[in-house]
């Protein structure tokens, strides 16, 4: 009889081994890590109201962490020193592969992201295909809107940026790309359209100096994700907090506005299939990633 039990137990273990990951961990403090896509003080101003709201909506404690760069966010998340992270599209698919990240929520605008190609306002060329041999700048290498997706669409259109442009460089952020175009350091640059628009709106970018030449097709970008080890109830509480933001409530409206959103939507792993494909094509992700 004992043999039978051993066999049954082994079968059960065999059956579960692959599916079993660390579960049901509820940290005392939820550490939030955000993608350093902008200057640190700007990010703090943008995220502090949200963090306060999450605290009140979930009765959990939170801590905001702004890493030095994109890859250190990934490292923190992988090491478990970040529980809730705001990833860009590419960093998210990388986190899925490395640390079994689970998409939680994103802004309504994140589903319809676009990247804008910028040139001097005086330049009369209307399509990027006319910029052959010119100097060009992507955003940071791990940026979805500044590098990965524009590159993906270029290649899909049969244009290899390494061969097409005379020179190719990466800026440290979207605002820097816009600045480089503005001061003529590069002839053409590509940056996140939302940021570009906000730069125009804030007057940091002069529409007399720089103009949008072309816009990419829409793609998803930015997502809030948690570790798979996070307790399901905590995960659900966080999601409900995000989805509960009500634009008709003034405080909520303020938070949403700071995030540039009208509402938060639940996010699923399928939403980032396109980004994943682009990442594999760019060679920054292996084919056999976990979704």
């Amino acid at each position, binding site marked *: 009889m004992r043999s039978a039990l051993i066999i049954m137990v082994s079968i059960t273990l065999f059956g579960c081994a692959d*599916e079993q990951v660390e579960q049901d961990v509820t940290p005392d403090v939820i550490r939030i890590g955000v993608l350093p896509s902008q200057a640190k003080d700007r990010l703090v101003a943008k995220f502090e109201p949200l963090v306060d709201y999450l605290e009140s909506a979930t009765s959990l404690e939170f801590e905001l962490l702004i890493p030095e760069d994109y890859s250190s966010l990934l490292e923190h998340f992988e090491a478990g020193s970040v529980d809730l992270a705001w990833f860009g599209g590419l960093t998210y698919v990388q986190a899925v592969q490395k640390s079994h990240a689970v998409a939680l929520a994103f802004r309504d605008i994140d589903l319809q992201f676009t990247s804008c190609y910028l040139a001097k306002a005086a330049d009369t060329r209307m399509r990027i295909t006319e910029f052959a041999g010119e100097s060009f700048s992507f955003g940071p290498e791990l940026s979805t809107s500044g590098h990965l997706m524009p590159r993906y669409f270029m290649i899909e259109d049969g244009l290899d940026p390494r061969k097409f442009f005379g020179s190719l460089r990466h800026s440290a952020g979207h605002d820097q790309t816009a600045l480089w175009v503005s001061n003529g350091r590069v002839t053409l640059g590509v940056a996140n359209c939302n940021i570009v628009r906000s730069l125009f709106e804030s007057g940091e970018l002069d529409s007399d100096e720089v103009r949008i030449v072309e816009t990419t097709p829409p793609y998803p970008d930015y997502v809030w994700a948690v570790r798979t080890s996070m307790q399901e109830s905590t995960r659900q509480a966080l999601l409900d907090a995000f989805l509960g933001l009500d634009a008709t409530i003034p405080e909520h409206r303020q938070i949403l506005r700071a995030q540039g959103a009208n509402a938060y*939507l639940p*996010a699923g792993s399928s939403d980032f299939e396109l980004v994943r494909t682009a990442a594999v094509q760019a060679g920054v992700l292996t084919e056999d990633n976990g979704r």
Partner: protein
Amino acid sequence: MNATRVNTPPVLRYIYGILAVIVVAAAVAMGSLYLAQRDEIETRDEVQGFHLESFSEVQHLSRELDTLRVLVENSMLAGISVYTGAAGVATAQISYTGILQSIRSRLMRLSNLQAQRKDVRSVATLERLTNRFSRIDRRLRIATPNQDTLPAIDVLASNAWQLSRLHTIAADTELRELAARQSQRPRFLAILLVCLGFSALAVGLLIFSLRTSLARQAETETALVEAHDRLHNIQKLDALGRLVGGVAHDFNNLLTTILGNTELLQANSTGDRELDTNLKEIRTAGMRAATLTRQLLAFSRRQHSERSILDLNELIHSMEAVLQRTVGDDIKLTCNYASDLYTADLDPGQLQQVMINLISNARDAMPDGGLLTITTENVAVSMGVEGIPDGDYVRLSVSDNGIGMDKHTRKRIFEPFFTTKEQVSGTGLGLATVHGIVTDSGGHILVDSEPGKGTRFHIYFPRADRPSENAKENQLPTVPQEGSETVLVVDDDEQVRRFVEKGLSSLGYNVLTATGGAQGLEICRREGARIHAIVSDVVMSGINGPRFMSGALRLCPDATAVYMSAYTDDVILWHRKGMDEIPVLTKPFELEALTRLIRKGLDQHDGTESSSEGS
């Protein structure tokens, strides 16, 4: 031999138990897998059903919220209240009422679906949506929309969007998980089957090796018991042989006296017919007793061989009547003799023994009668037939058409005490004796037999390079040989001594007697060359025959020597060592045989002397 029965030991039963448990576990595992799979299919259908239906309701809800927004926007633009509105806007009012009603029932349906499935991911959002709508619904029923109405409807639209996404994501996630589990199932199944297969194989091998080793152990034990039995039998045989040898020695001495005296009485017959008949009876009985003793000695193989060059045809021919009597009337005996048969160096008595044993064996193989054929032929063996060295042989074949033997029996028939006959009838020594005699004679024996196809024994005797001595023996006179020489007779058996003394004296010999070796040597020393022949027993108390003889022949170097033996081990030993060329007369013997040997020795001696004198 008893058939070996291997009982199932406890360890084997334990292994059988494990095997049974493995099989049951496999069945349970497969059954569980099947049930799990069925459950998963049901769950999948349920998940799909719930999420698809909810999703569809939410899509409708979104469109209805869009419509509501347009209506609210229009009425705000028109600056009219839906409920207090002026005439001519009845259509708008109807639409308002209808769309609100539609949204209400839509939310009710979603709530009902949620109650059935209790989806934790969407329940809070649906509640929020329902509560927010209730507020708008209440307001729109009692008052005109204000500037907050449109943003509130926008939030409802966002909530609906959230809800539809929650359902698609949940369906996607759940189905993906199910698919992942299902995709792993064949692997688990394969691993499970492989594990179970290996376990079963291992257990099977274990059982097989255990069974094999148990069977081997049983076989070894049986062989050991058999070997022990054989050893025991050999020891018994040895003891029996010693007993028989001892008895035969004394018995033969007695027979020598009986037969010898009878012979003397017959020689001095007075013509009394009744007395002659009685003497003949005594002699016949004595002869039969002598034959019996010889047979006893043959079984115990304590018989020393007196080999001579034989013509097998002649010898077997002389035995035909005896052989036919042995096999009985139901068996037809046919003898095929080869012409110009080679001679062989054999003891005729032993050959007779071989024939009797083989014939008896054949008789027992044909309980209902049959054909028995004895064949002699010349055979030249080349390229080694079954281990027989190349050369010329006389082949003696004894064939029957009896029951035959299987391979197992065929392999063991020459083992002592191996018998297929019932314990009372067979001694198990017959064929063993045959084998012993044939082998001792430098011959080979082969057996060819199959069940139901009879048995053929082929005995190969090496060809002798001299002509047969049978004829020579036959030419010798059968009457006692007279003489006048001095003969010294040494035997510790008084009766034998007296018979020999009387017999030789009656034939004219001058007989001196001694009761043992010491007295015999004394006589030799005293008489010296006057003694022409010395006849001595072999086994005597004090100085034994050979020791006495060697001393005596030194004292009387010209004397002819003859041993009288009662078939003891010592004679065989002395002969085997080749230490003695002195002829042995086996007891009981007739006076004629003794005088023939003495006469032969004396005459040869005379011949040598005369030839040396003549040279």
